[in-house]
């Protein structure tokens, strides 16, 4: 190994002096600089057109009045004023926070408990993870349309039939503003939990057996091992899944859009639904300025939140 590796390394170290010489365009091309740039062209084109430029345009557009017909006009902070004084905004913010909180209460502990249990399964572990992950690969639109049928509010609806068997219900599910949001969160949790379980399982296998053995020598029970070894060892991953879930739930769109279209009585109108409505649900042209203003505001809030979160938890995250 060392001998075969020797030759290429000397060949490699033979090049840098030539590279450090002052470079004319000719030597740059001969050295492969042009070739490298050509290979970068697809990425540069795609990212410029569909990532970098739109990000910049979004910021500019949030200060403009734009439609598809006339030239954009700068209107200062008007869009932000429109957005912030829209009474629906605060409904949407409240709903989004409510969704995020419910998703946290339901969606954060469930995958963790499931993963800790699954990591101790000795036989058919593949079956467990395959079953847990299956909902993740079902196309979200299909899942929502299927659950919409399950959520039928009549006494013969699928979930209401199940509830009747155990002597409960029937519940109005999506029809009532008090249960609609919970129904969305249950479906969203079902659809996403598998992915989180797999991440936790990977993290659990990397917990060093030495730590468990050390705890056992000190006479720790199973519960104490979970509390003092497993959870602290997972905290790095837990911190990240927490913030990823917050960022994800702040942008929930599909469930309220397809299940309830924001209803009943705006009980499930989320921030993304509002952005969509500003831009695309209007009768003519659409209010692109307000839509971009609100999306820029949302991005800023999320950025500030993440920055503060990582600052506060920095000492806690590293072991």
């Amino acid at each position, binding site marked *: 190994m060392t001998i075969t590796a020797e030759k290429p390394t000397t060949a490699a170290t033979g090049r840098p002096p030539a590279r450090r010489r002052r470079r004319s365009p000719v030597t740059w091309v001969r050295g492969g600089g042009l070739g490298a740039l050509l*290979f970068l062209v697809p990425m540069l084109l795609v*990212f410029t057109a569909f990532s970098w430029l739109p990000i910049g345009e*979004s910021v500019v557009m949030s200060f403009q009045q734009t439609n598809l017909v006339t030239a954009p006009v700068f209107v200062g902070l008007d869009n932000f004023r429109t957005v912030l004084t829209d009474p629906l905004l605060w409904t949407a913010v409240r709903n989004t926070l409510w969704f995020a909180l419910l998703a946290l209460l339901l969606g954060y502990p469930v995958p963790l408990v499931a993963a800790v*249990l699954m*990591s101790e399964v000795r036989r058919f572990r593949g079956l467990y993870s395959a079953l847990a992950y299956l909902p993740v690969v*079902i196309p979200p639109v299909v899942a929502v*349309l299927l659950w919409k049928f399950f959520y039928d509010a009549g006494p013969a609806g699928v979930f209401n*039939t199940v509830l009747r068997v155990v002597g409960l219900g029937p519940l109005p599910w999506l029809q009532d503003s008090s249960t609609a949001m919970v129904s969305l969160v249950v479906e969203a949790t079902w659809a996403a939990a598998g992915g989180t379980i797999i991440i936790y399982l990977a993290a659990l296998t990397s917990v060093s057996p030495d730590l468990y053995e050390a705890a056992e020598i000190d006479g720790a029970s199973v519960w104490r091992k979970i509390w003092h070894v497993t959870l602290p060892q997972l905290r790095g991953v837990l911190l990240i899944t927490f913030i990823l879930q917050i960022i994800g739930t702040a942008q929930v769109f599909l469930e309220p859009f397809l299940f309830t279209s924001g209803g009943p009585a705006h009980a499930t109108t989320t921030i993304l639904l509002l952005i969509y409505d500003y831009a695309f649900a209007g009768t003519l042209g659409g209010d692109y300025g307000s839509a971009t203003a609100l999306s820029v505001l949302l991005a800023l809030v999320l950025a500030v939140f993440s920055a503060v979160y990582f600052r506060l938890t920095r000492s806690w995250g590293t072991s």
Partner: protein
Amino acid sequence: MNRGLLSSYDWRRPVVRRTARTLHAVLLVLLFLVGLGPVLWLAKSAITPTQDTLRDPLALWPHGVDLSTIATAWTRVQIDRYFLNTVLLAAGSWLVQIIVATTAGFVLAVLRPRYRHVVSGVVLATMFVPSIVLLVPMYLTMVHLSLIDTFWAVWLPSGASAFNVLIVQRFFANLPREVFEAARVDGAGAGRLFWSLVLPMSKPIIGVVSVFAVIASWKDFLWPMLVLPDPSVQPLSVRLPALQPFVELDVFLAALAISTVIPVVLFLVFQRLFLRNDALSGAVKG
């Protein structure tokens, strides 16, 4: 043997063993109900007459099996066309993503020009911008380029995935550099290096990116809905919600089942890619 939370001593204690076994059995039953249940229900109801499904949705065994619902969905509701659109959208998005990710990863990890850190930086930075910010400007770009109702409007933006570039670049960086240097000494140019060495050595990561690209494209809803307003070019995900009010329940459920087959089969065939999850957990830890 690689041990976990419970030691072999724990496993020998009856209390622990019994509790663990019970919990595992309960978990397995729950996973069957929650994970597989809806899929099986959909499969069953797709071939059950509407009346049976409505009267007793939880009947385990349908009274009549009606395979014609599948045929009706496929031909009369034109699921065949939307299915083809979905496949074409997935294929194009896959190709664009592979081209962008491998060429960019090749430059950043193998050719390594001086400006690579700047480029990686601006690519990675896009991961921190919520995609909602891009929605309106990208939509207007598509309008101005007259790409509305063409597949290009979906294919091209799918390439702008920083995550793809990141994992491909990481994989390329771990390829043995000696091989590249040796090939260079033998006079191989960048194109030769890319095509004859890097790509053949990178089948695993190309496989990962491919499977995730196809599944993601199959799942996509909001963007195709915006840029493909003409029903004749829409994929299943966009068409299904619009069809619901006009189609009978059994046929509609058959259409849902048809849309689920490809992703589920891909998952079952490439299970390891999804469940081992090196790429994803690596990115989360990184």
